[in-house]
């Protein structure tokens, strides 16, 4: 889901090598280099910028972007990788605690610094793979780097990393399980808390606090009131949460780089968030989740989900889609659409969403993070009330 980026990630920023040891990154690098060799690449330049799609550099380095500035990892086929980040040298000691890469270079402009590095290492006429640059690097930097690469053979290598990231390792699934635990915890809190001064700002603040205290590095929140004539997910506002109101909460939390998300539909009763009886919608979500099987085409799954909804007589709110991959970014391939070419695979982690029209509540939204296992989907964020239980 698209959400508003913060100006800084202010949650717990820790690299716990028990959860994500250096061996995991070495394994990734070996696999990337195997693919580089197949494509004849001498070096891979991996770029990220901003907090919503910094997964590529994080996948290689574990370095988490701290301010919305550029990060670039240069991974040569042979030799040590280099991590360039836009920031002052004062940030170096802390950066070293969050990545296994030892050659870290703070700088003002990663494009210029990377060009210098390529020149110094006689790589200006090599075969270079680019990941993330075209879609994320500001145009001026891209052009200055492209100028430095004009004698290189340049290969768009986005799909290379995308394919690797799409199927998660056991350790990645465990990290997503941990972030899912935070999401579950916060929804449990909401379902049990009496929040004084029921307005959206107070509810938002309480959610942030619960998630942060549980170790969330980044938190995203959207609310909605489907009782309104026109409604959509939106940022919390300084508005009263009224008794009897339907209240939809979207929550995503990242733990040690990995995201999980869920959506719940509540009704406000007696000053607290109650889960309404939604047996039909609950059964529908479960049936759709049960259709997730490794080997099934994503497009086929999507078609089956639409059919299930139609057969149950629900009206689908299509704007939010059915979700897609989740991991180091909130929005990763595969997008669950009828045109997606990939098959579902064991080890994929998905955010599965369902938005339905409902006469009495105005609308129902539900979503869970899940991992695709050999036997089907395991829902990681389902625990509250009756809705969304596996």
């Amino acid at each position, binding site marked *: 889901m*698209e*959400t*508003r*980026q*913060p*100006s*800084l*990630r*202010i*949650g*717990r*920023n*820790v690299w716990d090598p028990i959860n994500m040891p250096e061996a995991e990154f070495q394994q990734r690098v070996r696999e990337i280099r195997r693919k580089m060799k197949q494509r004849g690449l001498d070096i891979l330049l991996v770029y990220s*910028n*901003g*907090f*919503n*799609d910094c997964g590529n550099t994080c996948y290689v380095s574990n370095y988490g972007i*701290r*301010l*919305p*500035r550029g990060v670039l990892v240069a991974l040569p086929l042979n030799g040590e990788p280099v991590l360039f980040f836009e920031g*002052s*040298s*004062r*940030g170096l*000691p*802390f950066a070293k*605690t969050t990545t296994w890469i030892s050659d870290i270079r703070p700088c003002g402009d990663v494009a210029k610094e990377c060009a210098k590095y390529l020149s110094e290492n006689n790589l200006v006429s090599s075969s270079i793979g680019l990941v993330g640059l*075209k*879609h*994320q*690097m*500001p*145009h*001026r930097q*891209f*052009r200055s780097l492209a100028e430095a690469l004009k004698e290189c053979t340049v290969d768009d290598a986005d799909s290379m990393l995308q394919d690797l990231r799409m199927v998660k390792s056991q350790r990645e699934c465990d990290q997503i399980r941990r972030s899912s635990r935070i999401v579950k915890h916060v929804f449990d809190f909401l379902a049990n808390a009496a929040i004084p001064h029921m307005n959206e*700002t*107070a509810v*938002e*603040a*309480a959610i*942030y*606090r619960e998630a*942060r*205290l549980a*170790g969330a590095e980044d938190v995203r929140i959207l609310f909605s009131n489907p009782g309104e004539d*026109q*409604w*959509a*997910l*939106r*940022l919390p506002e*300084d508005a009263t949460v009224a008794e009897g109101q339907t209240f939809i909460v979207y929550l995503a939390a990242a733990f040690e780089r990995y995201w999980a998300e869920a959506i719940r539909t509540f009704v406000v009763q007696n000053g607290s968030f109650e889960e309404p009886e939604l047996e039909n919608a609950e059964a529908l979500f479960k049936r759709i989740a049960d259709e997730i099987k490794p080997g099934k085409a994503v497009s086929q799954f999507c078609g089956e989900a639409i059919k299930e909804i139609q057969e149950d007589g629900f009206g689908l709110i299509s*704007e*939010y889609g059915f979700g897609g991959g989740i991991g180091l970014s909130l929005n990763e391939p595969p997008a669950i659409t009828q045109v997606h070419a990939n098959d579902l695979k064991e080890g994929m982690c998905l955010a599965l969403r369902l938005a339905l029209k409902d006469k009495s509540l105005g609308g129902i939204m539900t979503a869970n993070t899940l991992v695709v296992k050999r036997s089907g989907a395991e829902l990681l964020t389902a625990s509250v009330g009756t809705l969304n239980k596996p």
Partner: protein
Amino acid sequence: MSNGNLNLRKAVEALRQRGLDGLIIYSSGTCSILHASYLHYFSECKPLGPHNAALVSKAGDVALLVEPPWDALRNSRISWISEVRGSADFTKDLLAIMRQFKITGSVGLVGSREMTINIYSAVEHKASVVSADDIIEEIAREKTPDELENVKKTARIADLGFNAFLEHSRAGIREYELVAEMEYAMRRAGADDIFILISSGEHNYEMHEPTDRRLRKGDIVIGEITPICEGQFIQLCRTVVLGKPSPLLVEKYDMLLKAFHESLKTVRPGSPAGALSQAMNKVISDAGYAEYCYPPYMRARGHGFGVGSIAPGAVIDDDTKVDLQENQVIVVHPNQYLPETGYLACGETVLVTQDGMERLSETETRLYSKEV
């Protein structure tokens, strides 16, 4: 803070003066402490998606294009711009509006710093592109009463953030738990985003995001406490000692306070911004720490804060020549690494007034200590 029609009129006037067919005010959805939020300033839109823009024609047509498509409803409620379009294909929709608004000859581009090559090239293919950040910077130079009220509201929230910092700094609490409590206090008071850097220990090297570290007796806890309301940042730089501070620490912090106060004396309209840095660095240099005043140890001694403009700039150092102007919001911080004490945080945000400056926060800038 709605000043939409006036902003539109000024933007159209600027287009005519420069002979431009239109203006694109772009945002990649990021929000940076060291950059203005042009789109937010102009349209009041806080973007969710990766590509968003307001388009203005020289005839005065205006439209807001946002991603994802479902976010159009929210923006149509909060923005003064009546034509809000949601987009699932930003480049295609942007070019369509350019055609509709007859922006074909030359276009001013605001926020191009954030624009990726694919979108920039597509725009460049349709019109001659001129960087035009200064159009919004110029409009934003004059602050409205509502903007100034928001500045003061945000400053009050920063005080609440500091109160939480002081209240919850105690032996045993982890850094990230302390930050959670500060964030809670400020969000509850109405902050819509929070920027906090922190460090704890007997000798700190820099401020960073919070870690698992538990605070201990004798720790020096430093923080940059920065709530954001409607795009306006206000910052307090504070140091709290857990236990009785050593005479050495008191002496060094007093030196930073002197630097801070000397620096504030230079803040007035017409004074070069660099003077505040020079005044600060002189005190610290006279105390024997000249080499620690400059890179790699320190660089910026302050910077501007604002929604449509962060004038006098993202870095105020000795060489900053630009003059301060009335109603600019600047943080003045002699944050300093000293070899004996480590990194110390000291400073706050002030408003440049007609006669000098106004301190925006109620909490005093001094060394705080807590009994353990």
